[in-house]
């Protein structure tokens, strides 16, 4: 059951289209997807682009761009595609299974040599699908004297076929090739034009997708970026001066971006010998009063847990970004999963409270990264920001939040003033937050330690002191909970048939599922906290009390967030916890919830 059949509506009317551009590496499928994104975004459409690529480095592997274009904000990359552009045969044949049963295939009608039917994509077109043969190679060669511009020819086909504003494409292509010679720019634009001409003159349109050259005005300057780029920008905007990391998929991109940009802001990037050292550097920088960060994935987070725990005990600000991937162990480096929640929340010896934040969109990766630094400084604690492969790599058109981290709350400044006498680094206060001293300041000397300690930082194993200091560390979570903006429920008010709780990257699927259930006549609401530790338990209980059926959705097997919720609400919940490896399909949520309600 695909989305159109399910909703009983045609894609045309919804202005919601999923395009896949598939080929071998080097065929330009990714760059064509980027141009497509830019072109349609400039018309005011929203996009979500989530490419698939294999974990292994292979010379001419499959390269497939997947982008969803919609009039409305895009919550998920969607399931099956409406249109597949086949820039090659072999890899594209394997993508046909991801095409809707009434989907469109744009393929090369004049392959370089005579092909058997079973090696040409055209031979695999199922009844019900719509095939448009275009001499991609021939037109490309005519325009640029090379077959390499087949991707641009295909963009000409898409623009004309679906009736997008061609000028937007021309601008996007020109921008893409702005660094190139004039003759190159002219040639690639010619490739696009030949695709247009061929489509309007030779193709008799058999599908019903028509965007009617519409354009929608936008508010604010939008940018097209990935979750990792957004989080990296958040680090830069928070003013970090040090980034330490060890390459690991899918977090490496954050380090690569900062390696380029941080030195311009007088910052330093250190590629350490392992994740232990990376987080050690971040801890050291936090101790010395400098904002710094590291990003990793599950295997790295395991290694970092001892230094994070020291950060909790010694009350050192530090930000750790965990771009989750399939696990356990080395797991599935290029597949998405939300299964590091438990280690993020609790992964340490002893009672080790630490805030955990999970953005749900690319835009939030920016504002919540900034907020992570704010609360890390304000409450003198390690903070873990949870992304995952899907959120790290998906590309969206976003308008950066002008409020930045302020959207999520305003957090106090806890820096000590010289002259405090006697200075107590770990002074007991109602909020648990003590005056922080920056090394180098005269008269505010202290020694931090991973041992239990007194208010003045001296090791102490007295039971009463241990209780006091444990309470102090947990009190900071309460202070943070109070300062953080309350997570407002979404959807219908009042009594609900279905209440959906979700977190992180899969929240989009939950919201999409909610929309579908509402269209089916159910009263549906959602509760999607970004601050997962500490949780706003009162708000959660109030929401849960309104729901007949309470659902928790997440991309892991054991229901890691559902466990957290269950402990608060003390009632049966419907757990939709699965390892999909791909973004969570909203259909699946709908199907399971409907099964429960019937």
């Amino acid at each position, binding site marked *: 059951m695909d989305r159109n059949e399910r909703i009983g509506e045609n894609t045309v009317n919804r202005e919601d289209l999923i395009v896949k551009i598939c080929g071998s590496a080097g065929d330009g499928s990714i760059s064509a997807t980027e141009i497509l994104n830019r072109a349609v975004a400039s018309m005011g459409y929203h996009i979500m682009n989530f490419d698939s690529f294999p974990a292994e480095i292979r010379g001419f592997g499959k390269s497939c761009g997947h982008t969803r274009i919609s009039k409305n904000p895009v919550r998920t990359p969607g399931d099956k595609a409406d249109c597949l552009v086949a820039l090659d045969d072999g890899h594209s044949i394997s993508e046909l299974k991801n095409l809707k049963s009434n989907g469109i295939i744009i393929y090369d009608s004049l392959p370089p040599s005579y092909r058997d039917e079973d090696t040409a994509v055209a031979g695999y077109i199922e009844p019900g699908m719509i095939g448009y043969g275009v001499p991609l190679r021939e037109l490309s060669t005519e325009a640029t004297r090379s077959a390499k511009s087949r991707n641009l020819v295909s963009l000409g086909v898409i623009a004309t076929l679906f009736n997008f504003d061609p000028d937007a494409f021309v601008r996007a292509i020109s921008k893409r090739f702005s660094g190139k010679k004039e003759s190159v720019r002219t040639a690639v634009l010619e490739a696009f034009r030949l695709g247009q001409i061929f489509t309007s003159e030779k193709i008799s349109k058999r599908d019903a997708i028509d965007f009617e050259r519409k354009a929608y005005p936008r508010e604010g300057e939008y940018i097209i970026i990935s979750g990792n780029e957004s989080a990296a920008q958040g680090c830069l905007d928070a003013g970090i001066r040090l980034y330490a990391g060890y390459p690991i998929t899918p977090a490496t991109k954050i380090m690569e971006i900062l390696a380029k940009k941080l*030195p311009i802001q007088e910052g330093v990037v250190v590629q350490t010998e*392992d994740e232990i*050292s990376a*987080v050690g550097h971040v801890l050291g920088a936090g101790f010395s009063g400098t904002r710094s960060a590291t990003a990793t994935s599950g295997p790295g987070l395991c290694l970092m847990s001892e230094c994070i725990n*020291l950060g909790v005990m010694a009350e050192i600000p530090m930000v750790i970004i965990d771009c989750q991937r399939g696990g356990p162990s080395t797991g599935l480096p290029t597949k998405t999963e939300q299964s590091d929640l438990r280690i993020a929340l609790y992964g340490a010896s002893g009672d080790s409270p630490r805030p955990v934040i999970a953005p749900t969109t690319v835009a939030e990766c920016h504002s919540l990264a900034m907020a992570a630094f704010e609360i890390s400084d304000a409450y003198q604690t390690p903070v873990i920001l949870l992304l995952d492969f899907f959120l790290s790599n998906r590309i969206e058109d976003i308008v950066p939040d002008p409020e930045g981290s302020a959207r999520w709350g305003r957090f106090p400044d806890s820096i000590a003033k010289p002259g405090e006498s006697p200075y107590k680094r770990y002074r007991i206060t109602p909020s648990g937050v003590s005056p922080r001293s920056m090394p180098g300041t005269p008269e505010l000397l202290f020694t931090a330690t991973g041992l239990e300690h007194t208010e003045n930082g001296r090791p102490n194993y007295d039971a009463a002191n241990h209780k006091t200091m444990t309470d102090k560390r947990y009190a900071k979570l309460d202070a943070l909970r109070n300062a953080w903006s309350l997570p407002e429920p979404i959807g219908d008010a009042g009594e609900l048939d279905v209440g959906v709780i979700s977190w992180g990257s899969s929240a989009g699927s939950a919201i999409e599922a909610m929309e579908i259930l509402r269209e089916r006549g159910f009263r549906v609401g959602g509760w999607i906290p970004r601050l997962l530790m500490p949780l706003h338990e009162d708000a959660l209980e109030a929401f849960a009390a309104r729901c007949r059926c309470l659902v928790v959705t997440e991309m892991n097997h054991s229901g890691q967030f559902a466990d957290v919720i269950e402990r608060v609400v003390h009632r049966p919940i419907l757990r939709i916890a699965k390892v999909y490896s791909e973004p969570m399909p909203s259909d699946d949520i709908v199907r399971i919830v409907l099964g429960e309600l019937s």
Partner: protein
Amino acid sequence: MNQANTPDQPKPIIHAGVSRFLEDVQKSGILNYRSESLPTWCPGCGYYGITHGITQALSELEIPSHELVFVSGIGCAGRYPFFMKGYGFHTIHGRTLPIASGIKMANPRLRVIAVGGDGDGFAIGGGHLPHAIRRNIDLTYVVFDNGIYGLTKGQASPTTPQGQITATTPYGNPEQPLNPTMLGLSYGTSFLATGYAGLPHELLPIFKAAFSHRGFSLVIITTPCVTFDSVNITYDRFRHLWHPIPASHPVSDIRSAMMLAMSGEHYYGVMFSEDRPTWDDRWETIQRNARKK
């Protein structure tokens, strides 16, 4: 751990000779670098001698205590920051160098002194040493090498000789010991000095040279553990084994330094020193180039 200096403690009776010594200590300024906490090390521990050398050097170099950061890991040497005046970070086992490096990278104005034992530096933390050296980060790393795990009461360490009986090697240590000096030189440290805690007065020039060196300075001090080692590094056995590095030794020549390190003899002094761009120097260049692009 004892919390010393409670006000009710009876005043000890002090011998006249000791009293004169204390006056000398007062005058030397080394107490400016000592905290109110008295060390918890065993009486006779070599660490007292090392501490004397370090505080003397700091005093002579007139480094303000608020610019100092003492970083340590776990072990008897781990407690070091508590006994010193300055900023301190008593971290976790083996992570001394990454954390000390982070502190220095984030705030280059701070003077960072990392300390640790042979277990902290060469066993659990052994993977970090070559990389701190490669970065030539401008800090001093003092290894208190007593060839034994003292805080956990006498287990074998990476520098325990093969065959030695310890708590975890009751039939003799099956592993051969590391040569820390060779390790430091072959990793490419820009500064290496060695010393012996039983010769505390010889440590002053060593620490002065180390603290004055721009770049990573590795100082390996052999020190007796009087409680858990009665066969290997003992004051009696080591009394006559130590020689100053010959004045003729070319200190910037790595081959000569390695010859000394491999000689099987015990030398104290600066074994190797070379001027190289530090981490901060390199980053100044990188940042300048980045801004130009």
